[in-house]
């Protein structure tokens, strides 16, 4: 890991267009300002890890699970791809 020291109001530049500025140091809390291009997502690491876990758990469920959930959630059988919607119950 690269280790650098900075004072408040001083910055780092990562690559060509990501600027990280130390705004304030207060006890054990450091406030940083981050300027990055719009297509660069910035996340707190612990949130990123939790979201990664959540997305991985949700990804590509089994067909059985999808069918069971859809029927439970909508109260009607799941259509197969390309089928017309089933008529409403009479």
């Amino acid at each position, binding site marked *: 890991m690269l280790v650098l020291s900075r004072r408040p109001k001083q910055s780092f530049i990562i690559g060509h267009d990501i600027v990280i500025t130390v705004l304030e140091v207060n006890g054990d809390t450091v406030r940083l300002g981050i300027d990055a291009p719009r297509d660069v997502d910035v996340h707190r690491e612990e949130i990123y890890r939790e979201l990664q876990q959540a*997305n991985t758990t949700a990804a590509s469920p089994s067909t059985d*699970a999808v069918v069971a959930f859809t029927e439970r959630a909508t109260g009607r059988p799941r259509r197969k791809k390309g089928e017309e919607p089933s008529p409403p119950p009479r």
Partner: protein
Amino acid sequence: MTATETLPSPEMGAADQPEICFHAGLVGYPAAQRFVLEHGDGGVFELRGVDDGPDFVVVAPAPFLPDYAPVIDDETVERLGLRGQEDVLVLLVVTLRDRPEDASANTLAPLVINARTRDAAQVVLTGQPFSLRQPLLAS
């Protein structure tokens, strides 16, 4: 911008719809950018990855969580080119478990889609009281 208009139009689940593009991918799946929405009965959709990407079950919030009103930050509004409420489509990623009634929705990081351009992003709503695992079906 508060996302109140959250129910997709019925044709969004129809076949041969244009792709939805997550330009930054999804967290955990950075290469998964192109998806199509299928089905859509009762607000339950299947978000199918193009190019062997992962598939997800997603729901429109309104039928399940009628009080859900996320605030979309200005940066996201600008990034997705959202001009007004009518552009905003919000869908929630669902995690299925062994029992269907244990399914949960990710209300903390909804999928925000520009219904006009099909540009999309998964947005983390920091500072709002939402959950990665919100129970979806009241028992």
